[in-house]
């Protein structure tokens, strides 16, 4: 049986962990295996972890502006892969304009403050299924 594996991490100096932990628990409660990478990651460390763990989706939790700074590099690293792992970003700080930019660089989904549990679960399941 295939279990969905998701890497959850926070980039840069952002150390607001509550949402990341909350999302990790929610995904666990929906039967997924979450590799929790915590805070202080760089695009390189998350990329390397995603390869070593053979994850289906990478989820970035953000409560600062840093996603704008780091995500292009992560997306570039992944794009060079034969089968790039999809990336999703969650955070109430992500503005509509930022979300557009993220989508433009290849982020598969952006979850704002209004995103429901069901919406996030369905979206990750769909991405993992590809």
């Amino acid at each position, binding site marked *: *049986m*295939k*279990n969905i*594996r998701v890497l959850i991490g926070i980039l840069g100096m952002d150390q607001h962990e509550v949402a990341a932990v909350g999302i*990790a*628990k929610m*995904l*666990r*409660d*929906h*039967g*997924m*295996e*979450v*590799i*929790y*990478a*915590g805070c*202080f990651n760089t695009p*390189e*460390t998350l990329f*390397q*972890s995603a*390869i*070593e*763990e*053979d994850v289906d989706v990478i989820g970035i939790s953000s409560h600062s502006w840093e996603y704008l700074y780091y995500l292009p590099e992560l997306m570039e690293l992944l794009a060079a892969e*034969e089968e790039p792992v999809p990336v999703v970003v969650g955070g109430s700080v992500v503005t509509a304009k930022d979300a557009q930019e993220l989508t433009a660089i290849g982020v598969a989904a952006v979850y704002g403050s209004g995103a429901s549990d069901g919406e996030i679960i369905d979206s990750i399941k769909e991405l993992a299924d590809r």
Partner: protein
Amino acid sequence: MQKLVDKVVSGDLRSASRLIRMIDDGHPQSHEALKQLFPHCGGARVIGITGPPGAGKSTLSSSLIDIIRQRNKSVGVLAVDPSSPITGGAILGDRIRMSRHALDEDVFIRSLASRGHFGGITPATRGAIRVMDAMGKDYVIVETVGVGQDEVDIARLADTTLIVWVPGLGDNVQAMKAGIMEVGDVFVVNKAEHPDTANTVNYLKSVFRQTGSSGPIQRDWIPPVLETVALNSRGIDELFKVIDEHAQYTSRASEYYLARKRADCEVELRGFISREINHRISRQLADGEKINAQVGQIITGETDIYVVTDSLLQELE
């Protein structure tokens, strides 16, 4: 599949990572791949690390990685965390404690969820060790789920099993209980800055004095008891020296060691065979029609479950 196996043997991380996933998911071809990897295995030394939750297993693993890397050797780490028995989901958080090795190409860390398996490791662990071995890793560290007293599977897979203990955790009665106390090759009292450390170390040492000569064959390796503070690498050099000594001991293949190995291997083989039989039988029964008909008759009282079991098994034979 051959291509994947070849790439694993050449040390390719992505292929190894994918194959471990296939083993973990019970992919039908993974069994064959593991058979093909066999000629390329045997070079890795497997260190098992077990002990209660919060004892510092991941931090100790991280310190051991430091020493292995200082010696210019490569290492794979398999870190097992529990799956939820209800949803099957899991949070695997051991990587965080080893984050300083994240970008080291000669360190391959993989988290495994226990997936409903008891015993501290998972059915996929043996296969995952084989993959890392075939990649050419010099060491494979296997960190179990935080265990209680009876989860001893790791000792059958590891060349050297470390039991990580912490000061103040139970008295000598705890230490005399069967289970993990019997399978440890080396005992590590971690968090040794705690004032109760000397008591705990003395308790453990006295236990091995008492039980050292029990059993039919004279035990010729008395588990050493060491103190560490894994967080700042105190005592890790000494620990690694003892792991080396244990490697020399096992290579001498004494009567006691071989007897234990034989017993371990037999348990493993029997386990593998009964799992395989189970798989095959449930695949045959899965067609379901016969089962459905029988279930109907059992419910209406036309026949009973003992009779049906016997007749179905006879057919399969």
